[in-house]
């Protein structure tokens, strides 16, 4: 395919413009995680005893939860392009029309980077005391972006497949539940047995534990941090690849 890089960069610029100019979605993207953070720390925090400051435990979980909400916006944006005639126009041009998807995903990554920075900022103001080197910070942010990456490609796939904005919006319900049934907010061993099985074997748990390990040291009782990190990265890369390819194929197939 010719002009691939040019198409990718043009569509990325477009994605960033659309995201940064969607004021409502931007306010939600920033306020929602901050409110959730406040709620978990101030309301539930007192009742959860995990042997460390709860804010040290819960901050990474809130960031991943925010990524899920952000992904729902990506599904909406893709659905809009599919149904509004934009994709029709792009397909009638001698370009790589699927780059419209990568544009939305790139924009979502940048937006989540901003949300992540804000949540970390608020969290530090509230007493989050990470003990991380610059390299560990970088690794933690990289881990978060890998997570955002796969969940956004899933959102893009949903956006291609659904036939209405309502269906695209419904996507957020699904992704909202993943972090709740993980070690994001409470230790997994407090869950009932059947739920624990799911929580221990879904991608959010190793991602959360890796980010926590990198930033706050050992607060989740992980015995093999390197192994968990490998598992987290494999989950994200694997799912990212699967959903990106699926989104691309679905995009080609849908007429």
């Amino acid at each position, binding site marked *: 395919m*010719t*002009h691939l890089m*040019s*198409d990718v960069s*043009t*569509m990325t*610029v*477009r994605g960033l*413009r*659309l995201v940064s*100019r*969607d004021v409502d979605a931007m306010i939600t993207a920033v306020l929602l995680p901050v409110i959730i953070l406040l709620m978990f720390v101030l309301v539930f925090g007192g009742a959860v005893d995990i042997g460390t400051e709860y804010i040290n435990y819960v901050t990474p979980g809130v960031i991943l939860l925010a990524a899920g909400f952000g992904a729902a916006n990506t599904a909406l944006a893709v659905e809009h392009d599919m149904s*509004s*005639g*934009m994709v*029709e*126009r*792009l*397909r*009638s*041009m*001698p*370009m790589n029309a699927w780059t419209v998807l990568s544009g939305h995903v790139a924009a979502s990554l940048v937006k989540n980077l901003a949300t992540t920075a804000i949540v970390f900022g608020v969290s530090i103001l509230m007493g989050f005391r990470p003990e991380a080197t610059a390299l560990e910070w970088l690794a933690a942010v990289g881990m978060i972006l890998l997570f955002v990456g796969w969940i956004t490609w899933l959102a893009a796939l949903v956006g291609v497949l659904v*036939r209405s904005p309502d269906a695209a919006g419904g996507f957020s319900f699904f992704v909202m539940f993943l972090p709740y049934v993980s070690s994001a907010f409470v230790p997994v061993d407090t869950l009932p047995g059947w739920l624990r099985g799911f929580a221990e074997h879904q991608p959010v748990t190793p991602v959360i534990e890796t980010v926590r390990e990198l930033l706050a040291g050992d607060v989740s009782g992980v015995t093999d941090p390197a192994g968990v990190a490998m598992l987290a990265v494999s989950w994200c890369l694997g799912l990212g690849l699967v959903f990106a390819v699926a989104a691309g194929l679905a995009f080609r197939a849908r*007429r």
Partner: protein
Amino acid sequence: MAAIVTADGLRKSFGRRGSTSPPVLDGLDLELEEGAVLALLGPNGAGKTTTVRILSTLLQPDAGRATVAGFDVVRDARRVRETISLTGQQVAIDDKQSGAENLTMMGRLAHLPRRVVRDRVAELLDAFDLADAASRRVAAYSGGMRRRLDLAAGLLTRPRVMFLDEPTTGLDPRSRQAMWDVVRGVVADGTSVLLTTQYLEEADRLAQRVALVDGGRVVADGTPAQLKHEVGEAGVELTFASPSDAGRVAPALTAATVDGLRVRVPTDGSVAHVRSVLSAVEATGVAPEHWEVRAPSLDDVFLALTGHVGQERTAGATGVAA
């Protein structure tokens, strides 16, 4: 002159396998001469949009063959895309980008050099009367401005063929006028245009040839003058209390057609002719309930050329606009 767009026996159905839904295209043929405008005129569901989607490589026909500038729309899709521009029924423009940003994006996606894009964007904004609004977000544009920008977005590359799918549906009369001027300008610059429309007047104003589409095929075609000759410029329309009244009056009138309670007589609209029609009606002793002089509608064209009213068909359950 040579044909730049051809379609030969295009067939397409959207029904699920085994269903008996009628085909959207049922052996459609057409030909657009280089530098000319061809209008596909027909009611909703006639197959106009499906035809445009096939010609612009978005859809593959079940059978039949189509070419643009000599390239097959299925086998040489990429070459066809380099030749055409498509402006669909919906405005495909980002509300959250400005007019200039939208056009620049389309220029980049067409892989034009940066400097060419800059010059061409300024040129088009100027030509389409959008220069003052260039830096405003499209969300603040009027319906007519959006349509003009949408059209401009397809012209960055100076395409040889432009497909316009119902370019003025939903516009007020003044914006429609402005769109017609814009389309004429595009044609004057050497672009061949294939447009679809539900308006006889639009086909008349813009096209050298009109193809009447109904039930997925071209049921009649010719110049607008030929069509109008068949249909008449306008008609005196009389509505009677009963079909038998209508049937009694019609034989007394030249070239009258009867449709239930309605009798229609072609007229040039002059006082003398309308008076003579009314006198002839009066002489029969049957008084109409209502009468008026009406310009021919799409229904009239269908009635005159095919002997029946164009069938409005809703698209299949898949939601595909036909």
